[in-house]
């Protein structure tokens, strides 16, 4: 590799620590009413694993590696796409008393068309 990000030992631990802390703080602010969409939303976020699956598949040499790599991308893509679909659907449903029913329906409709 010519352009290399190398993380070993402590650098990785620092990244893990800061990311874990950020996750804890960000999620701590989410109200209980949004816990289900939050969970499926964070579920979607770890769908980024599909990118790792792609790297593994591109580097596959033997048929065995290709088969497992294919499986990894398949599952990762399902994780990401499914997680997004259900989260988006759930979040579109939350509305306040003020929002006119007709208005919010139109908005959801509009989003679906896009």
């Amino acid at each position: 590799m010519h352009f290399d990000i190398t993380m070993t030992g402590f650098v990785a631990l620092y990244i893990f620590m800061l990311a874990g802390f950020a996750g804890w703080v960000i999620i701590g602010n989410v109200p209980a009413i949004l816990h289900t969409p939050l969970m499926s939303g964070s579920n979607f976020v770890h769908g980024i694993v599909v990118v790792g699956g792609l790297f593994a598949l591109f580097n596959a040499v033997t048929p065995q590696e290709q088969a497992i790599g294919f499986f990894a991308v398949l599952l990762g893509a399902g994780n990401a796409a499914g997680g997004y679909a259900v989260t988006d659907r759930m979040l579109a449903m939350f509305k306040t008393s003020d929002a006119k029913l007709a208005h919010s329906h139109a908005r959801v409709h509009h989003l679906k068309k896009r």
Partner: protein
Amino acid sequence: MLTPTLTLISQLVIGTADLVAAFLFMFGLKRMSSPATAPSGIRVAGIGMIAAVLASFLYVFSVGPAARPHLLVNLGLAVAALLIGGVGAWFVGRKVAMTAMPQMVAIYNGMGGGAAGSIAAVELFGGHTNGLTQLAVTLLGGLIGAVSLSGSIIAWAKLDGVLKAPWRVPGQQVLNASVIGATLIVAGVIVASTMGLAVLGLTTAQWIWIFFACALIFGVLMTLPIGGADMPVVISIYNAFTGLAVGLEGFVLQNPALMIAGMVVGAAGLLLTVIMAKAMNRSIANVLFTNFGTVAKAKPGAIQGSERPTDAADAAIKMRYAGKVIIIPGYGLAAAHAQQKLFEFVKLLLAAKVSVRFAIHPVAGRMPGQMDVLLAEAGVPYDMIFQLDDINDDFATTDVALVIGANDVVNPAARSDKSSPIFGMPILNADKAAQVYVIKRGQGKGYSGIVNALFYAPNCNMVYGDAQAVLVKMIEAVRGLGAAAA
């Protein structure tokens, strides 16, 4: 043909796209802290995901010499896997009923764990790991990912009703401990085997197969004994597991975007697990390793009196003429798919100038926040929905508390009875309302087998029946009243 410049540019683009994706994930999750900004939050995160996936195709300029002859085949496989997995899950996710959300979240989560486990498998079989640290991290990530995959599949089967009762055998803890012990030993053998030691005449590859088989079996064994009402904790924990596995494999692949996304989700899942366990006044270990309910059968006969049934119409009319009503939904509402009928009934009450609010217990339903989503689907505005701490003091001044398909979360024994297995669990103080109605499928106990003192209280009446059928009767009763008045 593959010039070094091209390789360098492609790697810069991948690195930038991953950095942007990591930022957008965090920013998107941050926007999820309010219902008003949350829809844009998931869309922002979605843009990050698309950018990272598209950019990763540029990696074709950087593949090693050994994989180069296979590049076209691998590209085809990648596109096929993305399309099949992505499009399939997308359509299922768009169509599935809101009441089925817990099992969908479980299965998508399992897929992520499986993907992380598969990446570990590719790295292990291909011998791509460099040094002991990488090998150990790969094994750990593979173990957690595989447990998350098989465990989530069992969780899905339980939530979907494929598996009906928890499966419990004597000595289960010993069995589970020996399986995880065996898995860790096999992991040690793989390390030794990679360093050139032949163990029991098996090759490294064979040991890797045994390792993943053990991990998958452990996930199954760990999830089988857990009861339905403990599912919020289990789903949260597997969410954390998958996040952790993704983060660890991100380290193996030297990809910071995976590391950050995985660890953020791991922390989020851990936090939710802690919140759920706290709401049940139990430790996480207690949920996972104790067969709740088998110890809870003792102590019958401590409660005097009997359950008093009443008519759905009578209850409905009482609420129609009440000043303040609080509704407590539980899993029974979801099981009966009665959320639409409930809001229809509530709208009639609101039209009659009754103040109606919803009180949600943190562990009501089968996953964190499930009741909030069901009410939102029915069209209930979120400013009518209140969490335990915000509403619990108001029951004392409430005319009617209506409990629908909830049981243990309103059991006053948790407050007063030290011998009760749920003693100390925070509950909704429904019993403090002037009148309590409980809609329940029939006489019987909650999942824990605990007698509910509330049902025998002098201010409580039971309305037996399927929640949907009962609510239809209630709607008719209130409508009939309006017609008579006119």
